[in-house]
């Protein structure tokens, strides 16, 4: 097991290296100068040159990369060009905020969508199935920003049940913090529920057609036992993979939801830093995104044997 984990981490290193080198180069190939942005429309060439020198942007690209990469190996991701904040602590602080929303939303979505998908497959073409598929398709089709605004207008403005703007950390005040997180979590939950439900249904349908399910029924097992002990365990693999991808994708940035609900998460940080050409922050965010993908996929792989005995880790 340990060897497997270590091997996966070592295998991930080239991926991470390629990601960070690509991000480093690509963002500098995009037109737009952080110094000119900081100095505004009054910037003269001398002032811009001075700021370039101060920020180290007057160095050659290989040298800039070597300096940045050298610092990275010591755990130093540099400082934000815009605010001067330490990038590592900034990105981590914002990531933990995003993670609260994403993990809660995906967990809830799994708890609702997986059983719903399995039951919909069990009752294929029945009223339950058609309703579940219709709702899932509708939820998948509505963009998150629109869903968010609808919730904001209905729960916040019309019913006045939840606060419309602002954010309070759960660590600072658990009750108020939870109130602020309900709508963003609900938005993501509704959106992702549709995706997961459809996958759970489709993979269960495939398994339900197999001979061993017929055999199980012929043995006289209850429908519940057939469904959950035999069908679910064997059909959950693809859904589990999808959950891992959804989680990795969302942890990489939910900028739209964060913008609508004024949540100071990593997605908003990444978008703001791209518009501000804040290179160190962009690099820090992208490194975090890549790491999250690697870690989430590793966890997904490690969990396979828990429900699928055909998979072993060697």
């Amino acid at each position, binding site marked *: 097991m340990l060897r497997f984990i270590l091997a996966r981490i070592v295998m991930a290193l080239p991926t991470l290296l390629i990601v960070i080198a690509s991000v480093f180069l690509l963002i500098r190939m995009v037109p737009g100068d952080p110094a000119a*942005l900081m100095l505004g429309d009054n910037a003269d060439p001398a002032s811009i040159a001075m700021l370039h020198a101060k920020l180290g942007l007057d160095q050659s690209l290989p040298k800039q990369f070597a300096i940045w990469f050298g610092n990275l190996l010591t755990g130093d991701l540099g400082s934000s060009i815009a605010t001067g904040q330490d990038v590592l602590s900034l990105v981590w602080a914002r990531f933990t905020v995003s993670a609260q929303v994403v993990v809660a939303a995906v967990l809830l979505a799994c708890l609702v969508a997986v059983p719903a998908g399995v039951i919909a497959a069990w009752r294929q073409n029945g009223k339950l199935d058609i309703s579940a598929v219709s709702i899932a398709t509708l939820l998948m089709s509505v963009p998150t920003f629109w869903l968010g605004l609808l919730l904001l207008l209905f729960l916040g403005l019309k019913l006045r049940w939840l606060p419309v703007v602002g954010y309070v950390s759960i660590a600072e005040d658990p009750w108020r913090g939870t109130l602020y997180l309900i709508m963003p979590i609900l938005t993501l939950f509704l959106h992702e529920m549709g995706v997961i439900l459809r996958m759970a249904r489709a993979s269960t349908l495939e398994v339900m057609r197999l001979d061993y399910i017929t055999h199980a029924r012929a043995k006289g097992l209850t429908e519940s036992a057939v469904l959950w002990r035999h069908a679910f365990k064997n059909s959950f693999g693809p859904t589990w993979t999808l959950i891992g991808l959804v989680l990795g994708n969302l942890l990489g940035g939910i900028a739209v939801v964060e913008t609508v609900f004024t949540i100071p998460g990593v997605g908003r940080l990444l978008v703001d830093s791209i518009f501000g050409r804040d290179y160190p922050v962009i690099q820090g965010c992208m490194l975090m995104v890549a790491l999250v993908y690697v870690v989430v996929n590793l966890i997904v792989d490690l969990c396979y044997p828990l429900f699928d005995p055909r998979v072993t880790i060697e």
Partner: protein
Amino acid sequence: MFTRASLLALGILAVTSPAFGQTLRVALNQDLRSSEPGVNRDGNTDVVMTNVVEGLVSYDKGGAVGPLLAQSYEVSADGKTYTFKLRKGVKFHNGNPLTSAAVVWNFDRYMNPKTNWYCLNDFNGTNGTKVVSYSAPDPDTFVLQIEKPDALFLDSMARTDCGGLAIMDKASLKADGSWDKPIGTGPFTFGEWKQGQSVQFDAYKGYVSAPGKERDGFIGKKDPLVDHVIFMAIPDGATVKAGLESGEIDMAIVPESDVKELRANKDLAVEVGTTPVRNSFILQTRDPVLKDVRIRQALAISLDYKQIVEAVTDGLGRVNNSPVFDTSGYFGDVEKKGFEYNPEKARQLLKEAGYKGQQITVHANKRSTVPSFPMTVIAQQMWQAVGLNVNIEVLDWPTQLSKYGVGGYMMQSTSYSPRFDVASGFEQISGDKDKQPRKVWDNPEALALIDKAMETLDPKVRQPIFDKLHAMILNDVPIILTHNRVSCMAHSAKVQGVEPTSFSYGVWGITKKD
């Protein structure tokens, strides 16, 4: 169900109730850039920080410079020595008295290149005026000398992008000399800053206001009338609107298109005014096509400005083709006369210039705070109607700005940041393109006139110069100005004293009824 709703409602009450005393909640479209005035800054940060820090001089509501921390100031006969008498009784937020020694300490800090003061080059001789010395002959007097007379020196000291040369206590720095937080003399103290979310300012009970019976731009009566102010970073316009309607936000700048709807809400009000920000199309006069002044003139007179401005401001803006902003004292009958809308004459000019349908590309951006894109789309139709082949290239703002900086464009739709002094406003767009490619108007006669306007503050001398510059720029057409930015400040009906101008985020003098 009832129980759950009640619990949630109770929770909201807990969320929306101020911790203590009256709290004014103001929306910003983005967070403060830093808490260090004039060093790490942007437009929002400049104005928000005027609540916390003050300089020796600042702007009144008409854009003229007046004393703020100074009781008075005198300029020597040769125009090189400025003597400031400090207001008595003023204390920093930590209780330390304002003295001329503190002013000297601040000047030492600003003039030190290690501080990275945004305006250092404007004060050390690199870009004009050079401060040669300053001293504190007595605790209430600060004397400063510049190398040669400069009528706009006080204006430079007041500039918000320079932090208004904020005078702060030494304790604003940590023991190691690095920045901590601003300890100024303003009506509010700098409170808790949750970066990316909000910043809280608290009323400074020991505030000593400048003389005056009412607020007057950044000077005049500036007493804090609410206990706390929270500036909240809310980037999404729809969320801001929902926040205003739910009562969770007390004040916010809103787009013109929302004004009618918000005014229909009896719990809200909207103050509308114009600012010195100038919306424009700039033209590259060195471009092979646009170097012909007749084509530039045709571009200018083929636009129906009334229609454009009405469309992009929802009927709230006024046409202004002059670099002189329309609330300036120098905006007279001459400046009111803009481009004549004459599509027939435009066609004639194009024919005379031998225009054969060469493509003209206009850079525009979709930032929500400027009318760049909608204005360009409407103008494109009008240009095409007279036979001009105009293409729009939409760029993100950093890309457009970088192209602007090197003069790498045919045309751009852009907005110029405010300059309260009219001569500075002309200088902002004018200059030698060989030395400063970002400048759009490179006319030696105009540059000489601008220099002349910068030598004096006498309106009798300046007005004819500005009138002449206005006429010249309409003829040269290096820039097509359309209108000054409309500022729409929406606020709760409980909030009184809101300014619909560039000074909107200065929240002194604002009251909020419970």
